[in-house]
């Protein structure tokens, strides 16, 4: 008659396909939301999803309905004051649920934006999409952590293959000793008594025979203690620990002179974020040093780095100088992998550029894993570019890229990745 079915363990995510379709359809809006989110986020904050809001107008599913206006006659409940024929003022602005328009509320519904949450994976997906990353790299980056197996003492259970013989037998021996010790004590006592008695009495004395019997029983009991018990087994323990175990420091250097507008800064930010993301895959602990400069350089926090406005000329070497100083003071004790990322529009004070190259080449690049420079400018490369070009051949850990839009960022990392993937 009745069938009761437990569906709770059926496949989940029946709606996953519909969700994907939804995401695909509103890719434009989602991308915009992600761009906004990136502008507002710390460059280290890439492990969270994001809530995306889409104007509900955009995703309405239109149907034929009545609009406001015309004549409507509607029944309400809870009459507390009206009689037939009463004239009443129209309620203002839909205040109170009981507004006079039966249909108005229907159309007015859902005027708010439609908000939903992107998961971390979906967020990164969109982030990567913008940057035109190859798929292999995407999976490398999106993977949360790599683990390696490591020994970590012994446990009481495990697979037979992992039995540690020495430990197990040592445990068995200990157990046997411990369990037998009361019997052994008694045994020694009895043997002593027999020895004493034998001095005065013959061997077939009933007392001696009784003692001998007891000794026999005790020996049997000691024999009966199992040689090895499942309780004794010890197994080698292996635990998984996250692979990245080293630390890195990342220098972000950005030109904040008057010619770097917000758009260029936003591009620079993506560049820094991406480098950061690369590093998080390889290193457990990462410090970020923010240096911004115009004619003088200053170490600042992230907030000031991206958002405070400065203007004036540009002396890039001031920043390189400061980087060198910080590098030598704090990070050259051998415990750090050092990365550098510089973003500028390349418009440097003419005589300063050779000095920059000199500094990088002698005092910085030898200590660095990698240094990437991006020049964000729509037109011809500027003088800093021309100087830096000379570094490319000489140093394998130096990369530079001229950037007009976001998709140009990735090639900077290609070199870096070739190494890491190999």
């Amino acid at each position: 008659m009745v069938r009761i079915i437990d569906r709770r363990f059926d496949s989940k995510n029946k709606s996953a396909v519909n969700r994907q379709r939804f995401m695909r359809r509103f890719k434009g809006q989602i991308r915009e939301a992600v761009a906004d989110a990136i502008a507002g986020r710390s460059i280290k904050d890439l492990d969270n999803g994001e809530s995306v809001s889409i104007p509900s107008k955009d995703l309405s599913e239109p149907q034929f309905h009545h609009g406001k206006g015309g004549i409507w006659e509607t029944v309400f409940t809870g009459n507390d004051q009206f009689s037939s024929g009463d004239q009443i003022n129209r309620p203002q602005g839909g205040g109170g649920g009981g507004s006079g328009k039966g249909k108005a509320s229907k159309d007015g519904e859902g005027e708010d934006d439609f908000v939903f949450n992107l998961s971390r994976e979906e967020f990164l997906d969109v982030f990567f999409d913008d940057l035109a990353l190859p798929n292999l790299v995407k999976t490398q980056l999106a993977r949360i952590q790599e683990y390696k197996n490591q020994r970590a003492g012994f446990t009481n259970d495990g697979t037979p293959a992992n039995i540690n013989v020495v430990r197990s037998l040592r445990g068995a021996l200990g157990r046997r000793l411990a369990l037998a010790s009361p019997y052994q004590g008694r045994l020694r006592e009895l043997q002593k008594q027999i020895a004493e008695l034998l001095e005065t009495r013959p061997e077939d004395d009933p007392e001696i025979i009784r003692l001998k019997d007891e000794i026999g029983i005790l020996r049997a009991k000691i024999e009966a203690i199992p040689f090895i018990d499942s309780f004794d087994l010890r197994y080698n323990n292996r635990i998984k620990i996250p692979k990245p175990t080293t630390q890195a420091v990342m220098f972000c250097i950005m030109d904040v002179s008057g010619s770097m507008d917000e758009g260029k800064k936003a591009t620079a930010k993506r560049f820094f974020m991406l480098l950061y993301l690369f590093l998080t895959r390889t290193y457990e602990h990462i410090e970020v040093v923010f240096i911004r400069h115009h004619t003088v350089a200053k170490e600042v926090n992230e907030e000031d780095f991206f958002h405070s406005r400065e203007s004036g000329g540009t002396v890039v070497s001031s920043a390189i100088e400061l980087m060198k100083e910080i590098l030598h003071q704090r990070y050259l004790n051998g415990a750090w992998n050092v990365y550098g990322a510089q973003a500028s529009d390349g418009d440097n004070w003419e005589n300063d550029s050779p000095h920059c190259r000199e500094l990088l080449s002698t005092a910085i690049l030898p200590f660095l894993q990698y240094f990437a420079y991006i020049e964000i400018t729509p037109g011809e490369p500027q003088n800093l570019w021309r100087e830096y070009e000379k570094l490319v051949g000489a140093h394998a850990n130096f990369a530079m890229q001229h950037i007009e839009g976001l998709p140009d960022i990735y090639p900077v990392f290609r070199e870096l990745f070739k190494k890491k993937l190999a």
Partner: protein
Amino acid sequence: MSAKRQKRKQPLPAPGEWTFELIEAYHVEIDRVARSYGLDTYPNQIELITSEQMMDAYSSVGMPVNYHHWSFGKSFLQTEKGYRCGQMGLAYEIVINSNPCIAYLMEENTMTMQALVIAHAAYGHNSFFKGNYLFRQWTNADAIVDYLLFARNYLSECEERYGEEEVELLLDSCHALMNVGVDRYKRPAKLSLTKELTRQRERAEYLQSQVNDLWRTLPTQQIKTQAVETRRFPPEPQENLLYFIEKNAPLLEPWQREVVRIVRKIGQYFFPQRQTQVMNEGWATYWHYTLINTLFDEGLLTDSFMMEFLHSHTNVVYQPAYNEPWYRGLNPYALGFAMWQDIRRICEHPTDEDRYWFPDIAGSNWRETFDFAMRNFKDESFIAQFLSPKVMRDFRLFAILDDDHEGKLKVSAIHDEAGYRKVREILSDNYNLGSREPNLQVWNVDLRGDRSLTLRHQAYLRRPLSDAADEVIKHVARLWGFAVKMEVAHEDGRIEVLYERHQDRRKTDKN
């Protein structure tokens, strides 16, 4: 109730946590009582699901299987968000009008709630689905799940063949017309899976042969067309827009016509539900209340069970007054429950007033009257027929006339001797699909000229179309393939063109 109560049986245990054995035990008792009241139902299939599966079911309009579309993803996200933020609870149950009748019970429910839901869905709604004339005419409980399966497979086949994008755009357009895909006064043919498959193949072949025919250039053809040209097309205005497009849109390919048909058929399946909210919910609520109370009177239920049950029941039938902030119109559960209870009262203990208003049913056998009312009415007629002065007084119903040409609103009638009939008439009209939704017709196709399609909105009480109509017209134009005009016929006889959409021909040619 407590006076009648006899303690002769051991009450069923009512722990917070349900078990399958308990659900079965409760079902046995509920089933026994339901039979004793003569409820006629489809066999039941009770399925226990998680809250996430409930959200899945929500987003595919409560169907166990459905084709894929972004709009379902959207509603899933909406439900999920509302649920996670605690803004809304999920329904305790979803019930599907199928044979066997599938009722989803949520895993989070307590034992009491599961019992309530079984009584409500598996006996209340189920018997309504089986008995009510609208459901009998418009839906086919035996075939719906098979049909949905057919639809999903067909659409995924189309996606493979013609691309997801193409199918999605087509579905968007069809969804926009989903609620104008019904002939209100014609009864549809019954569905069956095998018939559906052969029919679909046959029609595709036939249509293809017709297309080939177009390339024949015989002189007789021309004579024929001339005869047609003088005729009006369609000869009578049509209200079923989707059907008209399915049969007559010039540029649709066979598979596209099939998709239009699928959306139309599924839309049609929901047509009775839209018209029987008060009756159906009221009926189910009445029966869960009655069945559970009967079990309690038999001593089968504990007091703690009843306390929790009554708490939920009271929430369900709560009706705020018009001036309270959480007023959202009449609560169909509250009104329906009150009306069914009232009908029973009129049958069993009629007053003079009842004898005057309801000479036919006052003092009659309540079970027979219930059966008659449940089978033969929809909200509109049910209210017109059975809403009693007592219920109007209890709800303190009053009607407001809102004329946008007048400065003020007018109270047109209240719950008094002079107003009963008027209030009832207006309330009945509020539930009339015909006046609630705009009256649209396929008016004309310009066969001679540019093949443009003209839709006409027959205005009623100066009610205009909402702005979304412009968007819908774009969808109509996409399906029709040629220009589409939307005009409104005012009550004073004026005809006014509201929107006009031209379909980009190059795009259509590509299809």
